[in-house]
């Protein structure tokens, strides 16, 4: 991004900070200064800590699930416990890890930096979002301690509202609360992008990361309230007996599915769009080429956000919605794949004739592209009405969404964390270990989830704790892969913190462009810039002959 400093424009803030070696991390260090901070960069760290905690809990549940599935008999845990395990896993991973993952950590840190702003539009609201997130997390942990919940992450009625005798109310409250955190973050980001862009930073000069965060925010703002009301209705039915979904009263349990998926299909795009943003930053940097088809990628992000709202019924093909509705939703589901495909083509085309540097972050980004493509294509299988009758509620679906959400989003999250780690900390981590971790993750992931496609096609239903012997080989492979995958995730948890102490001090180790690299100190000062940057050209001005430092 070409920028020039502009003395006259913009308010000047704290020019002495850099001279004194001050930055947002060391500027004050008390616990209080962290817990009451309104600095978007510090809030990003607060989220990073809480999200890592929940990722750990969710992974623990997953590990138990995979352990149970090593043998065909249900011997490690009984069926009730098993139901609670996959419910806990789903609820935590979706709402307490994936939905907030990239937006609240990297997004919070980078959004103002990338648009040349001093903070988000509503800094105190930003902090409040984190407290709300924490409160929601406490409810969910309480639900777990109170014996857990066994409805699955989908809370389907009438089971959740009338029959389950587990801690449904507590768990639903947790998700209800955390929803507001996501709404407020989305609202904050949208206003920030609209109102706080630096002079000269027009929409088509924004990095793709900003476009995708904007699209994500749009979904958070418009979809989450519908989830809130549907959870509220479940609570109402359980606590006050006001049965909105009760078939005996003429209620329609499918209504819940409609409302739930009106949120949750768009929400799967909350869980992939920011990953697409991260990858769109990493690939041009390490291919040393401008992003191919920038405008198409930018607009595809908004296209995904919009079309994502028109397809929710593809989760209900076999549930009893009308055949006509099924056909409409099937058609739209094919359309929604188009903007995703555009992006994949453009990432690939960016590599062409690029000068490719296989750094750690780049390996994560390339894994993302491959795994996301496989996940997206199998989504098209599922969107085919007739085929879904066979594949619905099998391991094929499990594999589909794990390829996108774990292979895609979680991989992008780790890649992005390492790409911007030097910016956030001023330290370089061990690149060799990053390369090892990325490769371990890629192999471990495929070993875990590819067998699940095969299991699904062979007819293994999801959410069962025992299975016929014929499926054992594939299940064992999957469990073995999970161990490798866990290693892939644990490695960064060691070498990243280690870098804080032993890492070499760096400024811009990748030779990356973008306001966050070129116009701000490493680590940035409290209000980001010594003076408001002025942008004069498009992003991704990478050149083939320039080496990363």
């Amino acid at each position, binding site marked *: 991004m070409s920028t020039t400093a502009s003395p006259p424009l913009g308010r000047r803030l704290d020019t002495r900070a850099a001279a004194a070696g001050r930055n947002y991390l060391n500027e004050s260090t008390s616990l209080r200064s962290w817990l009451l901070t309104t600095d978007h960069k510090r809030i990003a760290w607060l989220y990073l800590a809480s999200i890592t905690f929940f990722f750990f809990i969710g992974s623990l549940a997953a590990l138990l699930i995979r352990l149970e599935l090593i043998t065909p008999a249900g011997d490690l845990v009984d069926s009730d416990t098993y139901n609670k395990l996959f419910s806990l896993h789903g609820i935590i991973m979706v709402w307490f890890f994936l939905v907030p993952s990239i937006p609240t950590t990297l997004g919070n840190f980078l959004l103002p930096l990338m648009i040349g702003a001093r903070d988000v539009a509503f800094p105190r609201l930003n902090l409040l979002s984190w407290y709300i997130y924490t409160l929601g997390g406490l409810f969910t942990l309480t639900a777990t301690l109170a014996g857990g919940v066994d409805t699955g992450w989908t809370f389907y009625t009438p089971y959740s509202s009338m029959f389950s005798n587990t801690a449904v109310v507590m768990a639903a409250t947790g998700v209800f609360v955390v929803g507001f955190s996501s709404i407020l973050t989305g609202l904050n980001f949208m206003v920030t992008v609209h109102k706080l862009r630096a002079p000269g930073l027009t929409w088509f000069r924004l990095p793709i990361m900003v476009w995708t965060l904007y699209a994500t925010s749009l979904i958070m703002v418009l979809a989450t309230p*519908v989830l809130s009301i549907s959870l509220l209705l479940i609570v109402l039915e359980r606590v006050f007996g006001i049965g909105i979904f009760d078939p005996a009263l003429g209620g329609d349990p499918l209504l819940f599915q409609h409302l739930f998926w009106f949120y949750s299909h768009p929400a799967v795009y909350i869980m992939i769009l920011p990953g697409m943003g991260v990858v769109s930053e990493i690939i041009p940097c390490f291919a040393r080429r401008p992003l191919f088809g920038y405008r198409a990628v930018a607009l595809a992000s908004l296209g995904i956000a919009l079309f994502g709202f028109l397809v929710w019924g593809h989760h209900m093909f076999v549930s009893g*919605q009308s055949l*006509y509705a099924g056909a*409409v939703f099937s058609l739209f589901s094919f359309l929604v794949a188009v903007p995703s495909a555009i992006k994949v083509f453009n990432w690939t085309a960016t590599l062409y004739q690029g000068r490719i540097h296989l750094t750690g972050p780049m390996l994560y980004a390339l894994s993302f592209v491959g795994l996301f493509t496989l996940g997206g294509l199998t989504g098209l299988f599922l969107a085919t009405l007739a085929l879904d009758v066979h594949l619905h509620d099998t391991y094929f679906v499990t594999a589909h969404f794990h390829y996108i959400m774990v292979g895609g989003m979680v991989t992008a999250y780790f890649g992005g964390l390492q790409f911007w780690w030097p910016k956030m900390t001023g330290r370089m981590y061990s690149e060799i270990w990053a390369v090892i971790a990325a490769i371990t993750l890629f192999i471990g992931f495929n070993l875990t989830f590819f067998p699940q496609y095969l299991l699904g096609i062979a007819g293994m239903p999801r959410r069962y704790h025992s299975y016929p012997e014929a499926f054992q080989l594939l299940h064992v492979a999957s469990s073995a892969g999970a161990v490798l995958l866990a290693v892939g995730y644990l490695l960064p948890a060691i070498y990243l913190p280690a870098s804080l102490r032993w890492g070499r001090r760096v400024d811009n180790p990748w030779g990356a462009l973008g306001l966050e690299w070129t116009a701000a100190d490493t680590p940035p000062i409290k209000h980001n810039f010594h003076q408001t940057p002025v942008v004069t050209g498009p992003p991704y001005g990478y050149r083939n002959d320039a080496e990363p430092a």
Partner: protein
Amino acid sequence: MTSPGTTTPLRHDRQLWLLSAIFLLLQALLLITWGAHYVPLGAFTPVVNFGIAIIKTLLVAIFFMQLRAESGLVRAAAGLGGLWLLILFTLLLADYLTR
């Protein structure tokens, strides 16, 4: 006159007059819906009722909530909710009307 608004509101007396006129219009519309309740309109009942509700909403939003003085961006934000409700209702009815 200190107005934080982006555009200058109408002059004082005209603004008061306008708000009151809109108020009377709203109450008149209320009387019409109420009256229509006692007239057998058949399938048109919901059309009339919700049509009037939408008109009332527009009046409140444009004049009482001052959308007419806001920027296009803010107006778009105001329209966003309505548009998304339309998506929700339409696709939901695609199922319920064809069961």
